[in-house]
């Protein structure tokens, strides 16, 4: 009996890193958007925050696209 500890370990590490990274990125994006919401409410603009938010979301979209790629490529 041979347990593939290496594969299990890498699944563990990759899952942890990707999940936390992705959620962090997404939360940053959300923060950017809600900063804009607040800024607009006060009549200001928050273009830097919004730009950051879109960069963050673009990263998330890329991750999802890669996920779909994995689903398809496995085939």
């Amino acid at each position, binding site marked *: 009996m041979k347990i593939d500890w290496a594969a299990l370990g890498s699944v563990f590490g990759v*899952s942890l890193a990707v999940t936390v990274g992705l959620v962090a990125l997404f939360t940053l994006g959300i923060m950017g958007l809600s900063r804009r919401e607040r800024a607009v409410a006060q009549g200001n603009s928050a273009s830097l925050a919004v730009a950051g938010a879109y960069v963050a979301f673009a990263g998330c979209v890329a991750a999802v696209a890669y996920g779909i790629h994995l689903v398809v490529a496995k*085939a």
Partner: protein
Amino acid sequence: MENFSLILAIVVVTALAFDFTNGFHDTANAMATTISTGALKPKVAVAMSAVLNLAGAFLSVEVANTISKGLVDETGIRPEVIFAALVGAILWNLLTWLVGLPSSSSHALMGGLIGATIASAGMGAVHGDVLVTKVLIPALAAPVVAGLAALLATRLSYTLGKKADGKAAEKGYRAGQIASAGLVSLAHGTNDAQKTMGIITLALVAGGAVSPDSDPPTWVILSAGLAIALGTYLGGWRIIRTMGKGLTELQPQQGFAAQTSAATVILASSHLGFSLSTTHSVSGSVMGAGLGRKGGVVRWSTATRMLVAWCLTLPAAALVGAGAESVTDLGDWGTAVVAVFLVAASAAIWKISRREVVDASNVNESEEPAGVVTTAIAAVTPPPTGTVTEGLTATIPAPASVTAAPDPATPPAAAV
């Protein structure tokens, strides 16, 4: 086509029935958190999941030619054995659905296959080491990996996102959740519809209807995809309720963290060659997300019941599979008896389920009131997660349905 015997037709129909139960059993995996946080309306969520499952079924072109992953000796496997395995898997899926517990459909199928193979070819045809490495270890690892990832992600999301509130944040989390739930659905369609295609193709090869090593015929792909999509659309509302509400109360951030963790674990594991069960990953990540929020409470009574169901899945399905196989061995009439029994048992389970209907309208009502102690603890302290665990496991009595689950599983074996 003249080789298309009756038993073959029965196997194909049964495999599609399994595919159907698989679909509605696993809708919860993709959509439970999305529904419970209100990101999508229940009906919309299951429809979206169904479409993505169907799409997933067509995405994949490679045949899942080893349905058992080397678990049993597949040489000379007869259609009757596959039929018996499917009977075990379907009945277990229906039973766990009745009591509203998520359990792995793959484990049910493998259990059925193990039981049927033992009954047909003896102990020697089952590879014990594969059982440990491909079934038991992943079953232990999946909830831990997904749970830990979800826990950390939830923590981080609450810490980072303190200032994220208002409409924009709400909309954002909703979108994020829908996207990751979609990914889970798609991956599920590819994996699980594929499994059924593999079974049908294997049966067709065994019965001599198609040549070995051939791709599944188009009608197989189409019908398998449609069966799983239909099952998904009808929705296992009972399981969705347990997963989305029964385990813990989820806020949008948690739902997003849980779903993202589940999607990541599923994709990473199948990509890196250590396949983890979708059901186990999602259950683990929901619990992790529940623990990650300050003051979040996981209902350990529900979690315990789930764990019991997981442990029983393989042996219970194996028992039914073995019973079914020994009856089909008696001859054609034996196969007929098993088929009739399957239909009757399924009808009975459905009948019982009508006593307390769970559907799209009441899916978000909490299944059971949180135990007095759970509520008290939640009210008094916003507790550090570690101590909650100990406090709760000790005080909540196991609910009656734990014992209810195995009970109906035994009659099939006893009856044959």
